[in-house]
């Protein structure tokens, strides 16, 4: 398995990561539902994880994998906070559309 993964050139991993990241970014820029935001952010983080693991494999260095684990833990924490924000959003505005609360403008 590892041999198969190692035999794939690193460019492909990078292309995959860039694609996943762009999907996440596209979600953030176009969607107005807060839950989609959360999921899009998750995609962008995992794009970064793919890069970490791919380079870790390529260089034979475990540091990248350790960082991927850190990012997963960070993502979990971020989701916890994000869900909390969304709950408050729902309580105050009756829905979770991020274009509705604009009180923080000038």
């Amino acid at each position, binding site marked *: 398995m590892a041999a198969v993964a190692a035999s794939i050139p690193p460019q492909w991993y990078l292309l995959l990561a860039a694609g996943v990241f762009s999907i996440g*970014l596209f979600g*953030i*820029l176009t969607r*107005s539902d807060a839950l989609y*935001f959360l999921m899009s952010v998750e995609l962008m983080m995992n794009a970064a994880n793919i890069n970490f693991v791919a380079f870790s494999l390529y260089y034979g260095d475990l540091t990248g994998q350790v960082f991927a684990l850190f990012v997963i833990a960070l993502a979990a924490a971020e989701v916890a906070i994000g869900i909390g924000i969304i709950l408050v959003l729902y309580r105050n505005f009756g829905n979770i559309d*991020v*274009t509705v*609360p*604009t*009180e*923080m*403008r*000038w």
Partner: protein
Amino acid sequence: MVDAFAYVPAVVLLPFFSFLVALGAGKYLPKGGAFGGIAATAGSFLLSLWIAATVAGGRAYNETLYTWAGGDQFELTFGALVDPLSALMLVIVTLVALLVHVFSLGYMNDEGETGLPRYYAGLGLFTASMLGFVVADNLLMAFMFFELVGLCSYLLIGFHFREPGPPSAAKKAFLVTRFGDYFFLVGVVAVFATFGTAAFAGEGSFPALAEAALAADGGAGVWTPGGLDVGTWFTVVGLLVLGGVVGKSAQFPLHTWLPDAMEGPTPVSALIHAATMVAAGVYLVARMYGFYALTPTTLAVIAFIGGFTALFAATMGVVKDELKQVLAYSTISQYGYMMLALGAGGYVAAVFHLTTHAFFKALLFLGAGSVIIAMHHNEDMWDMGGLRSRMPVTYYTFLAGSLALAGIFPFAGFWSKDEVLYEALVHGLNEPLLLGGYVMGLLAVPVTAFYTFRMVFLTFHGEPRTDLAEDPEPVRWNVKGPLTVLGTLAVVTGFINMVPVQKVLGLEGIDYLHRWLDNEWGGIAGLSSHHYADIGPYSSGSLVGGEVGTVLVGAAVSLGLALAGLGLAWRLYNVASPAEHTAKLGGIKDVLYNNYYLDELQVWIAYRTEDVAGGADVFDQGIIDGVVNGVSSVSLAGGSRVRRIQTGLVSQYAAMLTLGLIALLVLVGVNGGWFL
């Protein structure tokens, strides 16, 4: 052994604390904070006595306590200078302030005035500023406290701010003295620029440097503008500082604020005239006398202004109808005498007259305050009369003060005024300008005696002319107490310096004030009357019969003139129902009554210079403020445009983040040469 000099700041700070207490908590305290003020001034008085005793023990104090701005060229500091002169002044100021506080219990509290915390706060700050001024060890610090004194006078003269008169009088006092202070400020800057220091005493003080510069040929070591001659430049600097003195000490032509300042409460008038504000000017000249003694022209100007003011103000006092107005003009006149003495090289005489005047003028004002209480705040002397038997304590103390003011032997004023005139005479025999000052000072003597006793006779003698005078309101201990203390002092203060007696009888060593100011007990080198006489420009002459003859003739002439004035007042006004004799003066009366139309002249000058003031206003509002406002409105307008990017929509923030990232990438890429 605790050092008295460690408590010099406390002397200043105690009244300042009473100011804070009266301001912050006055309305919760009994008597509106009066007791705090009394305790503070009493404390300061005791400390001052202790300090004076230490100075008498042969020590002096000249320390920099705090440097609030230091640089390569100048150091701006607060310090304390205690020598015989400032120790004497500390005692005078704190004593008069204490008595004024006590008197205020009777004049303000018992009369049911409102706003008492404000009043006592003002008194406290006034006393504190004056004490700070007295102990100041450099000219800049003196200037700052000088200004504080002016501010306090503004606050206290305008105490009854709901009536129309006092606020306008307060404004006038502030503006007129500010006009003089403007020159003083320029003078302070000039002193710094010339000498690099403004210290009063010590090796590197500016009088010492000035002396050294004049001794060295060509004025080495000091800066003068455009290579001006040192002596000329020193004269200019001296005259600039003198501007502040003329304003504060109410000398011609800036005396006009003082009679109007009578709108303030009477105890405040006593404080202003006897110990604080007006005394500040004369004290300043005495403080830096080591500098003034070097410039003969300045001295001559001081003497001439002083002599002229003495006579000029005395003539106006003759026709006034209100008790306090007469006293106001007498104050201007008496300070004229002090200036005459200073200008004539009579440093000790000036300080002597300052001392005796502080006591008898405080006494006269407090006595007038007592009469005003009794007369339910009617000040017109023509409504009084016959108060002698109805208020004996006030009468006898007031009489003592009046005899002192008129210069009748052996009251305090006789000794000091006689010495002032003697100094002017012996030095003036070789100096025409001084002799002119002396003649005017001498002519003012009978006028002074006349208006003083016109006031006494109209107020206390004869028959009561109104129902109010028939049945005056009684005054309490808090009025009689200070009067008694000051009345005693007005009688005995003259005995500290009986120079004529010493000279005529050949007794040695009874001129205590001379010895005190000559550092005989202790002091700072270079600040003694002997030193001033050495560097001063005058030599003594004498009339027939040598020194003794001159003393006797001088004293006899001034006493004779004073008695003549008194006698005239006696003849005209010491009758059962006196009439106004001023009508006989004809047109002169109107001129005198309207103060020689000087107020009108000042208003006229103010209107003539309206365009200049208007131009300055346009420049200030248009150019200076325009630049400042322009800068702020540009950033305000810019801000209100730029803030619109804060839409509050989180999607747009994300888009901007992305765009920013792309822009950065492109920038880095172009710089890195990716696209080539």
